């Protein structure tokens, strides 16, 4: 399966086919999700209209974690099998993930002001998401901190793998510690504990975010692959 993708040309061909599809899914689900979120779903009896922040915040938080797992997994593949496409996927995922994390942090604190009366508290959930953000930053800085690009890629991959420990901490921090932040109500073992009128737009938005991720990922990986091709051509030219 991933030997199949090891071939950059094949990967390029595949992504160029999938890219418009990802774009369309993104536009449709995001549009529908936003419509439902803003106009169709009811205000919460406790949180009133501010609950609509959820449809931006929660999928962003999910994607932050999803992107990190993707980053770590593809880093591991790149490191162990020296898999070029995996490296490029990892490199392209990092900034997208960092943006989702930032979005989760920003919307979270915007939401926190009306709900908790403060922009920021040092509770376990919030702190561990902040660490996640620093891990993304560290990955990107480390990737570019070396003169030889391959050296940076491998150092950063090791960091990404080590940092994956943070993801379960984010996920379970609300259960392990007393936090202000509320515990999981959608992704639970005994099924979601949330009203369907809110669940629908939430899931639509989640699908939209995911498709958006793939859309951007495809664009970025293709750019990187083409840059690599140019570089390889130059080297071959030098070899004569």
């Amino acid at each position, binding site marked *: 399966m991933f030997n199949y993708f090891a071939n950059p040309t094949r990967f390029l061909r595949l992504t160029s086919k999938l890219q418009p599809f990802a774009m369309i899914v993104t536009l449709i689900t995001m549009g529908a999700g936003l419509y439902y979120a803003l106009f169709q779903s009811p205000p919460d009896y406790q949180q009133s209209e501010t609950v609509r922040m959820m449809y931006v915040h929660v999928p962003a938080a999910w994607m932050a974690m999803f992107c990190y797992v993707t980053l770590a997994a593809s880093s591991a593949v790149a490191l162990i099998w020296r898999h070029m496409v995996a490296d490029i996927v990892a490199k392209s995922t990092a900034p997208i993930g960092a943006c989702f994390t930032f979005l989760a942090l920003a919307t979270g604190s915007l939401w926190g002001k009306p709900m908790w009366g403060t922009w920021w508290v040092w509770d376990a959930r919030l702190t561990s998401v902040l660490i996640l953000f620093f891990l993304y930053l560290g990955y990107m800085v480390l990737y570019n901190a070396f003169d*030889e690009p391959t050296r940076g890629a491998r150092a950063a991959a090791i960091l990404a793998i080590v940092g994956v420990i943070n993801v379960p901490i984010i996920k379970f921090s609300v259960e392990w510690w007393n936090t202000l932040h509320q515990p999981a109500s959608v992704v639970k073992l005994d099924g979601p504990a949330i009203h369907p009128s809110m669940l629908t737009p939430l899931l639509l938005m989640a699908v939209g975010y995911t498709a958006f991720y793939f859309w951007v990922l495809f664009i970025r990986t293709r750019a990187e692959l083409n840059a690599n091709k140019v570089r390889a051509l130059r*080297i071959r030219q*030098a*070899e004569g």
Partner: protein
Amino acid sequence: MADFSGNSLTCIRGERVVFTKLDFSIGEGEVLYLRGPNGSGKSTLLCLMAGLLRPVSGEMLWNGESTREDAETFRGLLHFVGHQDAIKTALTVEENLTFWAEMSGVDPAKRSVGEALETFALSHLASLPARFLSAGQRKRLNLARICASPAPLWLLDEPSNSLDKASVGALRKAITTHQEKGGLVAVATHEELSPDTNVLDISEFTNNKSAAA
């Protein structure tokens, strides 16, 4: 019959092609002289031989087996002397040498720290902290390392830099003794160390444009 060879090695450092399709081979008791102008890739080739760099293509064989297969054993077979001297200035000359002899993992009975110090005329400096050494004395300490524990393959990068006449003589003798025991040597140098029987001119494998640029 020890034998070390490389086939069609290509090396790229920092996106710059250093050399392409380079072949070398060192037989038992042989010394391979690497020659070439500054920047042609002698040091790079030595690092490649040691396994500190990886070639982009090509492979190296020790007794016909790829050195990548059993890298740990291969590492136990070589001594490397680079430009950097790996000397801790806070330790004495003898402590420095003993440490590297111990790290080589060689049976203590086979180590010969005292003899190595003598070979390079360092015995009287043995208990001196290495920070007081002059440039040539540092180089000698670094060279003594390869005599302190036995290993069949020596990789030497400009070993005669900073050495006075007497020490160059000692180095020549050490290399000859090693050869006689059947040892292999690869040495990058701009000077004459002994009649050059086996010379590899690296500039033949470099594309002048990219190597010089």
